[in-house]
């Protein structure tokens, strides 16, 4: 294979990196309130280092050497050094500017830095397509980039100063954010998987289920919070724990009975839905209790009093009130529902009808077909739905602090109100990073859970194998 051509993607990355030098690298402000002043990188100590690195990387991408393993190594190492350089020069710029400034001054990353990060992403993507060691350059670069702040070299950056101010609540809020979105995902799965299954099984039902899930998705999130607020408010005030558990348990029992009696007929399906909602209501309470407990432990908020365990306790003692985690959980669950339902539906519909016909004809029961064929075939689709739902809820949970539920959005909200861009970043960056991380994790898990026979490489392998058709064996 000829590899004599320059790599256009890495070259583009290097060009972007060089272009970024024309923009201000950091923004310096005397205090939080005044407008800032931009400083280009080249005017700062050791600023020449970055263009040198970009030029070296560009030269490597232009040259024709990269067919051999040594060039790939060189590319990966050079890339990692460039990543560390971008990260380090940001911290360095902050340190040099803060030398002569008061502690109230703030240094924030500016356009040049952000464009450099984009350039790194582009170059890393290009390099990861090179052979050998270069395949790991993305990970290597990420580690090099992250090493700088982890070693404390961003300490003079506004971001680090704001972090120092809120260090006590940052991790608990991140934990709450995760707890909110994961609980919502769990609730959505418990409601969405059976709904997707029912939609896939019943032609007439599919329109309704997918339509409703799609419609719910279009309701603006802030409006949804507002709409469920009075409902939860009234519920928390007037209902007791005992009556709530009674109603939810009753719905579960009645629904299960209807399901058993009428099977897959409409009455039975309605019963199934009722039972699901009953389970949902009970789980919502459990989820709220969990989140309330975490909040109490982490943020020193309310904690459970012994009275909350009595059946006559108002629901508000368990966190069901107009503001707080309850309406947020409900809204997040509703948003997570659509990807879960659609992907379950699509996954189950992707099972060839011939397979079901043959399996039934061979004496497999509906449950056996579901467990042995439909579930494994639909699983990659469902995992993709979980991934979408997770990223979605993690993002939307950002506005949960608006109604008093915690989360990283808390810092964003405070940053916007107080005109502190660094605080906004402090809330936003972890959301982006964790969302990417979760998405990658679920994506990887989805690939692992895809049965080997359904993976793309199985088909590619088959193309050559089928050429050798066997001779018809004669039976004597």
């Amino acid at each position, binding site marked *: 294979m000829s590899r004599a051509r320059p790599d256009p993607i890495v070259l583009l990355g290097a060009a972007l990196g060089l272009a970024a030098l024309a923009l201000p690298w950091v923004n310096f402000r005397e205090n939080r309130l005044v407008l800032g002043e931009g400083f280009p990188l080249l005017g700062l100590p050791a600023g020449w280092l970055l263009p040198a690195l970009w030029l070296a990387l560009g030269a490597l991408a232009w040259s024709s050497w990269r067919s051999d393993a040594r060039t790939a190594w060189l590319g990966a190492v050079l890339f990692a050094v460039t990543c560390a350089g971008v990260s380090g020069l940001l911290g360095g710029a902050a340190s040099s500017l803060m030398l002569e400034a008061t502690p109230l001054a703030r240094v924030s990353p500016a356009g040049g830095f952000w464009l450099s990060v984009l350039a790194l992403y582009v170059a890393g993507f290009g390099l990861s397509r090179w052979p050998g060691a270069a395949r790991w350059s993305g990970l290597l670069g990420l580690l090099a980039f992250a090493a700088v702040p982890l070693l404390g070299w961003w300490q003079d950056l506004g971001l680090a100063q704001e972090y120092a101010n809120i260090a006590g609540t940052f991790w608990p809020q991140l934990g709450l954010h995760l707890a909110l979105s994961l609980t919502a995902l769990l609730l959505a799965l418990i409601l969405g998987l059976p709904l997707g299954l029912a939609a896939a099984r019943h032609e007439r039902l599919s329109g309704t289920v997918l339509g409703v899930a799609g419609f719910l998705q279009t309701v603006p999130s802030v409006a949804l919070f507002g709409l469920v607020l009075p409902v939860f408010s009234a519920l928390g005030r007037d209902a007791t724990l005992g009556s709530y558990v009674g109603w939810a348990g009753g719905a579960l029992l009645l629904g299960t009975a209807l399901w058993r009696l009428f099977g897959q007929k409409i009455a039975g399906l309605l019963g199934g839905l009722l039972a699901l909602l009953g389970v949902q209501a009970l789980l919502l309470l459990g989820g709220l209790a969990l989140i309330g407990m975490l909040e109490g432990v982490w943020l020193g908020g309310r904690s459970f009093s012994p009275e909350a365990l009595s059946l006559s306790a108002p629901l508000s003692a368990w966190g069901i009130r107009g503001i707080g985690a309850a309406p947020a959980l409900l809204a997040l669950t509703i948003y997570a529902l659509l990807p879960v339902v659609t992907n379950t539906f699509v996954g189950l519909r992707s099972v*060839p009808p*011939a*397979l*079901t*016909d*043959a*399996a*039934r*004809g*061979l*004496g*497999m*029961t509906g449950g*056996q077909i579901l467990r*042995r*064929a439909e579930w*494994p*075939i639909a699983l990659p689709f469902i995992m993709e739905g979980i991934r979408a739902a997770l990223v979605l809820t993690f993002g939307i949970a950002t506005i949960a602090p608006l109604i008093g539920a915690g989360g990283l959005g808390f810092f964003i909200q405070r940053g916007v109100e107080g005109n502190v861009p660094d605080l906004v970043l402090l809330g936003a960056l972890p959301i982006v990073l964790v969302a990417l991380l979760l998405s990658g994790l679920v994506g990887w898990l989805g690939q692992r859970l895809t*049965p*080997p*026979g*359904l993976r793309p490489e*199985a*088909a590619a*392998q*088959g193309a050559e*194998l*089928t050429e050798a*058709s*066997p*001779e*018809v*064996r*004669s*039976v004597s």
Partner: protein
Amino acid sequence: MIEFREVTKQFAGGPPVLNGITLAVPDGELVVLIGPSGSGKSTLMRLVNRLIEPTSGSVWVDGRNVADVNVVELRRNIGYVIQSVGLFPHLTVAQNVELVPSITGVPAAQRRRRAEDLLHLMGLEPAAYAERYPRQLSGGQQQRVGIARALAADPAYLLMDEPFSALDPITREALQEQFLQLKRELGQTILFVTHDVEEAVRLGDHICLLGDGVIQQFGPPDELLHRPANDFVASFMGDSRELLRLGLRTAADYMRPPDPAARGQVGLDWPADRALSALLGAGGAAMQVVAPSGEVVGSLRLSDFAGSSQAQQPAGEPGA
């Protein structure tokens, strides 16, 4: 034995697809259900393993009304092969064949051995094919696996719904040939649906021609070809049905004593259509008939094929 007694099937809001069908499939025989599309041949077959329930009448397998048998038990004793095969794409070939035995709790080693035997029987060497996935196989190979899967539980009955119809002609012929040999070895009672007259004549011990919801004619292939009961049968079996009959016979059925003037040779065991083709190619001259041992046992000329059709019944098994 599979028996249909006065079976009628009517789908909601339509005319009856099957109207009072009474039919018996004797043990060890292969009965072909044939007819134009919409004639209800697949429907009739699917009544046997209760994928469809009759509107009225009953279906009996082994002397028991299928309506009284547990549906899962019933189906596990009846192999089922369909045109689009329906293999599990996420399971290997061996796992597909072992599917039903693995559910019924047959020990792993035993069912594995059975699967390998069946694959071997179907011409797919287990060493090369057992661990492959369905989409790494050609259509013909997939259908071999499908047949092996249907035979895995060693069922006494086999239902085959156009199993070879989606294959290319060469693969189809190879599979038909192999299937005939297999059938003789295993001795299952088989109900076979096809729309292909040639396939029906080739494989069937008896053919049941369905049309307009009723049985138009039931009999050995030769009978449907030579003595069609009505115009419907005659037109369905086609204008060249006398030529198709030749496939049921061999050169031995037509030959006369040796003729020293004969030139060229045809095999004693050649299908008669092949012998006729050879004669036509030789320009109508007489040819020698040669036994597999090489000995000249007779001679054959074009005129032997004319007018002899009433006299001779097929020798031995049809299609042999």
